[in-house]
């Protein structure tokens, strides 16, 4: 790729991506069990709509789309940061234990302590963060390296996965309730969930601005970055915590959604290059678009059943990786 081509692609996608996002959002507002046309949506927004439409749009679809945007944006941002800081183009928020931690916390809350099931988002969020911290501390030995973090992550993921499975086996009669959450979806997510996640999500997204420069320098290599006077260990730690916050917020509300954090940054990187000034914001937009669009499909195509969006996204994952295999250059 030449610099000219890269710059051109950056220009194009900076225009196309936000437009796609807006289209996909309106698509989500109009489609569902009931098709609500754009003029009817306008009526609702100006308080002149049918009560049934108003319920659907204002209580169900609007918050759900907003949540989908935040979830997709946070997961993609998390994945893109991790891929740089862990020097692994196939890194994904699961690597730092976010999914395993949130999953275990969710299982414990829903299955063992059902009287507290309304605390699920908080429990999942804390589970995600605490697990990331544990993994980081385990990997610490006068500093860390991506390899050590990955190893610690594998160990903890295995452990938490085993405990989670164990609980599911012991309480097998109660497992029904947890499965949709584990599959990842936005069913029933409304204003309550949006209000829960919005402050954390927005703060985390704003913090991403400060991660751009350090993340770019870390791309040069640990040694080179240190020779440029960067406190690489500290920066890596902070970026991992930020990635964990971003993913934790998303997973706490949407359950275990995979694929977005791994694939969206990968695709965007192929188009715009590794520079986080472009990679990060465009990944966020890409992730948001993907999740909202997939969720709309997941809740409309199989009416009256809702498919958890995590399953749909996982189905998209397989062909994508096969495509990557066929490419000459994996990156």
């Amino acid at each position: 790729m030449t610099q000219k081509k890269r710059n051109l692609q950056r220009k194009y996608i900076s225009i196309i991506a936000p437009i796609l996002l807006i289209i996909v959002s309106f698509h989500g507002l109009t489609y569902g069990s009931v098709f609500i046309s754009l003029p009817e949506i306008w009526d609702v927004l100006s308080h002149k709509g049918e009560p049934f439409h108003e319920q659907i749009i204002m209580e169900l679809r609007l918050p759900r789309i907003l949540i989908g945007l935040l979830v997709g944006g946070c997961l993609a941002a998390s994945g893109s940061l991790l891929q740089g800081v862990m020097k692994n183009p196939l890194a994904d928020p699961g690597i730092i234990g976010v999914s395993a931690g949130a999953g275990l916390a969710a299982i414990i809350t829903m299955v063992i302590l059902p009287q507290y099931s309304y605390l699920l988002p908080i429990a999942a969020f804390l589970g995600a963060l605490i697990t990331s911290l544990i993994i980081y501390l385990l990997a610490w030995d006068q500093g860390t390296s991506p390899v050590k973090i990955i190893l610690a992550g594998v160990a903890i993921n295995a452990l938490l996965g085993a405990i989670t499975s164990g609980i599911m086996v012991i309480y097998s009669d109660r497992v029904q309730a947890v499965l949709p959450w584990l599959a990842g979806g936005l069913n029933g997510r409304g204003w309550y969930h949006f209000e829960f996640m919005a402050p954390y999500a927005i703060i985390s997204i704003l913090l991403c601005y400060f991660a751009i420069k350090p993340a770019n320098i870390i791309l040069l290599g640990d040694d080179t970055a240190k020779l440029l006077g960067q406190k690489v260990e500290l920066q890596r730690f902070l970026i991992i915590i930020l990635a964990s916050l971003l993913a934790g917020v998303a997973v706490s509300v949407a359950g275990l959604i995979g694929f977005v954090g791994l694939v969206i940054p990968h695709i965007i990187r192929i188009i715009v290059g590794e520079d986080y000034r472009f990679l990060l914001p465009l990944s966020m937009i890409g992730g948001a678009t993907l999740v909202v669009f997939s969720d709309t499909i997941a809740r409309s195509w199989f009416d009256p059943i809702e498919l958890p969006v995590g399953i749909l996204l996982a189905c998209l994952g397989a062909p994508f990786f096969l495509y990557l295999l066929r490419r000459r250059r994996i990156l």
Partner: protein
Amino acid sequence: MAALPNSLSGSLVELAGGENIASDFASLANYPQYAQLNAERIIESNPQFILFMGHGDPEKVRDGFIKEMKQTAGWQHLEAVQNNHFEILPPDLFGTNPGTRVVDALDYLDKLFQEAKD
């Protein structure tokens, strides 16, 4: 997650004289017992009664369930919620197969529906 008419609980409801909103949907006829119903369809159907199958002591779990219901999108508009027509079903009769006590389960539902009619 909703229990369909062909599940044990769903079947009991129909025997007790209730109508499962899921039975409105022809495509679900052959679906295995439980399904994630689209929230929009639930609101559209506007059930008069919501029965929760929990797995703890109903008394303890009730508060938690109420809080969770408030969180769930759109549910505060449901007639059942506004009229307080929801019930946490005892897990020993409805959570797992009650065996010979299935008659007790039916009685429970019957009593519930009778009280609601008044």
